[in-house]
């Protein structure tokens, strides 16, 4: 935890007169107020499931530390800065993230990174179903979602760009579930440590890494190592899942005038 003088500490576990922890509206109001006063370093203590934390925020120097368990939709529409969670994050973390960085020293829930189009998400542990659904990229800029352990089914569904990297740390079998990249039409899913054809969803195929991919893999591994003080064994092979076509619906429809 930072003990910088300019850091503002907010106790999210503060009880109201009925004994409830701080309501999410009040917590977010305080975060926004602090940011609007030019204080960009915030520490949230005793977070107890408050949702929507730091949504639509994001100055480049913003840094919010979250101790405890944030609720769903952490960092939705995030534009920049860093959110660092010392605990587990819940569902829809990084919903439609535009930019910035979210670091989770634990696991994250289902639909992590839904529809993100920029920024970086590093999850130390595992994540749930439909991670990175419909993430996309524009003008070469896309999000990077890194999951240290395993993810469940439908990772990268409808994916239209960006990178998902599932590292499989601590896994003894394939770190991804079924229907990997179902309906994907852009981007790449990188899987370290095993993935079978039958795990692929419709529209996805397996490929070897090219030079660019290898550089991305190395870059993301180093970021992970730095964020979590980890060391990753480079000898485990990484495979790439990519789209068969950027036009998955080609030939599916008939436009004859009836």
């Amino acid at each position, binding site marked *: 935890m930072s003990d910088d003088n300019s850091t503002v500490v907010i106790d999210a576990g503060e009880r109201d007169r009925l004994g409830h922890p701080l309501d*999410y*509206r009040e917590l*977010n109001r305080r975060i*926004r107020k602090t940011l609007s006063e030019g204080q960009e370093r915030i520490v949230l203590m005793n977070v107890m499931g408050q*949702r*929507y934390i730091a*949504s*639509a925020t994001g100055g480049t120097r913003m840094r919010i530390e979250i101790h405890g368990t944030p609720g*769903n*939709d952490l960092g*939705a*529409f995030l*534009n920049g800065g860093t959110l660092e969670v010392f605990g587990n994050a819940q*569902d*829809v973390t990084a*919903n*439609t993230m*535009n930019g910035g960085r979210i670091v989770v020293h634990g696991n994250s829930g289902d*639909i992590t990174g*839904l*529809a993100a*189009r920029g920024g970086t998400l590093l999850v130390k542990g595992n994540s749930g179903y*439909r991670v990175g*659904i*419909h993430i*996309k*990229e*524009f003008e070469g800029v896309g999000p990077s979602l890194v999951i240290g352990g395993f993810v469940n089914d439908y990772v990268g*569904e*409808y994916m*239209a*760009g960006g990178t998902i990297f599932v590292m499989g740390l601590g896994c003894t079998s394939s770190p991804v579930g079924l229907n990997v990249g179902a*309906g994907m*039409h*852009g981007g790449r899913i990188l899987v370290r440590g095993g993935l079978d054809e039958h795990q692929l969803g419709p529209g996805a195929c397996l490929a070897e890494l090219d030079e660019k991919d290898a550089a991305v893999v190395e870059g993301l591994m180093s970021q992970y190592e730095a964020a979590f003080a980890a060391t990753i064994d480079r000898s485990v092979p990484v495979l790439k899942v990519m789209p068969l076509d*950027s*036009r*998955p*619906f080609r*030939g*599916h*429809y*008939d*436009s*004859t*005038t*009836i």
Partner: protein
Amino acid sequence: MRTDIKVPEKYLPIIDQEACIRCKRCIKSCSYGALEFKDDKVRVKDGCVSCLRCVIDCPTSAITVVERPSSYAPHAVFSPEIRRSIMAQANSGGVLLSSCGANAEYMDIFNDILLDAAQVTNPSIDPLREPVETKTYLGRRPGKVVVDDDGRIDLDASETPIVVMDMPIMIGHISLGSISYNAQAALFRAASELNILAGTGEGGLHNDFYCHSKNLCAEVASGRFGVTSHYLKEVSCVDIKIGQGAKPGHGGHLPGEKVQKLISETRMIPLGTDALSPYPHHDIYSIEDLQQLISVLKESTEYSVPVGVKIAAVHNVGAIASGIVRAGADFLTIDGLRGGTGSAPRVIRDHAGMPIEIAVSAVDQRLQEEGLRDKVTLCASGSIRTAADMIKCIALGADVVGVCTSAMIAMGCTVCQQCHRGACSWGIATQVPELAARLDTEVAAQRVINMFHAWNEELKEIMGAMGIDSVESLVGNRDRLRYIGPNPRIAEILDVKHSGEGWG
């Protein structure tokens, strides 16, 4: 694999060779390549869709387009359409695609409803001489009035954001991508000048259109195209699109050919890729999940704009609507099965859902029963074709009507149902620069303004004739409607009396 037997041509342009001055304008007009100039004559090829562009462009009115007389032998069960669709599918194995709204006459109930007017016991009002109010408010009703020290109602004291419109009309969500830049510019300009709302559709907002943001409702669909916090904060309201009447339960699909520079920038996706909106929002599998998306949008916009939800009219619409209001939506849009689309599978367009007349009435009744109706604005759309439909729809329970196809017709659309092919000869549903340039934004905007102005005048005329001086008193006022159609059970469901039944 394709196995083609030709599906007979449907339309035939007939050229009056006497009248034709061989200016060749029609050949340029036709974006479907159905005309050519050969041996000093305009000749007809295959492919006419009856868009009528050539007919209107021809300086000597030398062209007539007719349905081909050589049609299938008549059969009461296997209509030509059914036979053609089977032929086409046997050729391609594809899902038949179409556009515009459902194409089936029996679904129309507006035509079976008659309006009331005042006689003797309640005086009518002359709207040209007495005030008849059409101002409409969109947003969550605060449920209380705050009075200032001078005894005046304090309008700013409301804790919930409200959008004020001059007419109970919203131009529905039509995305940039499904229509051209010029067409969207015209609709947005019209909305600004009329002080009504226009929907952005799910494709984000082009930088040039932020000047209209106070009259825009941003759509957040499952693809989240172009949705950033900046965009959400700039517009005057935000609409979560769950579904669309023309294709309930179906996702969005903008084919890669249409994803050109302009579209790619606005949607923030790469050039030339299919823009797919997943069928459901994968973060929403329940009312509780919907509540979260509503809440995160409110948090992200700092409670400065109303957040609504749009659903297609499906059979359980009443219960779903109730859940949506309980989930915190400030406004609710029900889109009926005749609603328009830039592209939808025919099988869904023509067969799934519920007509808006029944849906809006069912939702209005359900919300009343549960004490929720007062809390929200109810918008209804799905083929509100004329002022008469609008008035009937309001009297069936809508606060606001959403209109798309009629606004497109005002701009020149002939409802040829080819939007999905992207070659609109009127420059509306196309991204081909030469075709899009055919639409003059100024002229198109003015035509939309004229049409809605006329509708609003007709609304006032009808309200005046009914002796009602504010559109809010028309909302859900079923007493002023009577049913005259073939199925009295529909009247019961609408909670509208049959023609001939009086007040008592």
